[in-house]
């Protein structure tokens, strides 16, 4: 039996223009929707698959405001069977704070007999891009961690994880459980919730806990938008007639010899 905990983060759906709040401490998300990053959608899919293959359960966790229950319900709708919300305003929480809070939930659950063989997270959050929560969580728990993986399979207490290597090859890791892994998009196709799945998700009681500790913070001073750059584009032409000018450019840039 393989029990999996998957951690997600509620982030604004940045598909258009990004605006900042008046105090420059956050993104003004009043006019956008919310989602989880593509990495985390894949992590949820992997968690559900691994739990199903091993006869275990997949639990989803997030740290965020009460509204983040929306992201938890999405994960419940595609096969997670339990959900935990560490309810707080996440603005003051840095990567180390979030890792500590997740570790505290894991410790409390495991003390009560709910163990997690594998903990999955996104490789990095779509908004803060810290690249740290999974690794810091692993150190908090004293467990091995593999990063940037696309697929994970569990056999006989060992997780085999694969991801892209620095030179473009596919690297394989094998780590004993319990372990932590951070997931990159690309290894699995996240499923859409069925109507039945959504109905089931609505009935699941979400466990709500408070943060255990005051956050240290992320060190954020302020956010700024890069200055709007006037378009300096040089149009080389239209249609096929532009081809000679393009090839001249390729030569001048030294990419065509």
């Amino acid at each position: 039996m393989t029990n999996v905990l998957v951690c997600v983060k509620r982030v604004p759906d940045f598909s258009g223009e990004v605006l900042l709040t008046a105090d420059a401490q956050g993104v003004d998300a009043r006019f956008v929707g919310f989602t989880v990053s593509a990495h985390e959608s894949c992590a949820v899919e992997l968690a559900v698959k691994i739990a199903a293959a091993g006869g275990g359960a997949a639990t989803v966790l997030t740290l965020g405001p009460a509204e983040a229950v929306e992201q938890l319900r999405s994960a419940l709708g595609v096969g997670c069977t339990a959900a935990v919300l560490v309810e707080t305003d996440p603005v003051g929480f840095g990567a180390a704070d979030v890792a500590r809070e997740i570790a505290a939930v894991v410790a409390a659950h495991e003390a009560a007999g709910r163990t997690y063989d594998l903990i999955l997270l996104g490789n990095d959050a779509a908004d803060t891009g810290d690249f740290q929560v999974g690794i810091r969580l692993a150190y908090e728990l004293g467990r091995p961690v593999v990063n940037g993986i696309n697929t994970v399979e569990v056999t006989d207490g060992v997780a085999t994880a694969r991801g892209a290597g620095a030179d473009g090859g596919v690297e394989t890791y094998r780590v004993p459980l319990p372990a932590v892994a951070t997931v990159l998009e690309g290894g699995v196709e996240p499923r859409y919730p069925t109507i039945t799945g959504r109905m089931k998700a609505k009935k699941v009681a979400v466990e709500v806990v408070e943060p255990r500790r005051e956050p240290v913070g992320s060190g954020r001073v302020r956010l700024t938008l890069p200055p709007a750059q006037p378009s300096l584009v040089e149009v080389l032409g239209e249609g096929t007639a532009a081809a000679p000018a393009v090839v001249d450019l390729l030569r001048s840039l030294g990419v065509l010899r």
Partner: protein
Amino acid sequence: MILVLVETDGSGATEASLETVTFARDLATRETGDGGGGPVRAVVVGELPEGTVEALGAYGVSEVHHATGEAFSAYGGAVWAAALQAVHQVTDSVAVTATGSPRGNEVLAHLAARLGVAMAANVVGCPTPLAISQPFVVSRQVVGGAVLEEMRLDDRPAVFSVAGHAVESTPAASPTTATLREFSPEVTEADLVARVVSTEPGEPDRSGSLRSARVVVGAGRGAGGTDGFDGVVELAGLLDGSLGVSRVVTSLGWRPHHEQVGQTGSRISPELYIPCGISGAIQHWAGCASSKTILAINTDADAPMMTRATYAVIGDMHEVVPAINEEIRRRRDQR
């Protein structure tokens, strides 16, 4: 003193690592008043191609610490961090940095967790000098580069990675003769648990080295379907480059995910990026904004990618790209 984790490929330090060394050298030479500057030293783990030490000296590195031994024969985030931590402990560095590559960010996150200090990923500038006792503020990319965050790093060492093309790699005005120091730090069993056990070659296409490619030819929704990539694949081949695609292309199943450029794909920083039929959503821009020159090809002259590009051609990629390929072949035949 600033410590830089230098990544290598088969021929020496990667271009991104040379940028990071340049960034560190510029930071180290800024006047701080309390000794925040000083020499730049490098750490190389595992493979050390011939000539790397001399090349790093030309970029102003005074010492190259090379971690050798069986423990470093295969990549592992924890074991690489152990090597970096060992050098930090004997050199008492004010800052430790690496390039903002997947590996660089991973190793620095391990180091920051081990030392119990903060870490800033993908830094592009430093509004304040790096002093020992004063607050150190970095400017880094968040929201995939659409927003900049000023972030205080109060801990020492200040741990941060440097985003691609934050600076141009430049040899030092006063090159040094770098000293090579081989070392084999002790690592724990726990550090060795999560190491690469095997590496298989990438798929036999031109995207294997997407992140390090000098030229990337991109294709988006404008490709129109799985059979719409012949022209861009040929152009990538003619330019000895790689093919990179937008997220919509992989979501529709037209091309494999490992070719995806963007916030959740590869972040590229080539000399030239040629996005064809790509509108330039924030998430895609996050992956290609570090390109030195962008030549966009699109039917929509007002698409974000077209207005942010260095050069543009207005037109259908299915007509323009084959015409460029033909022109390249024609000129080659004339030689």
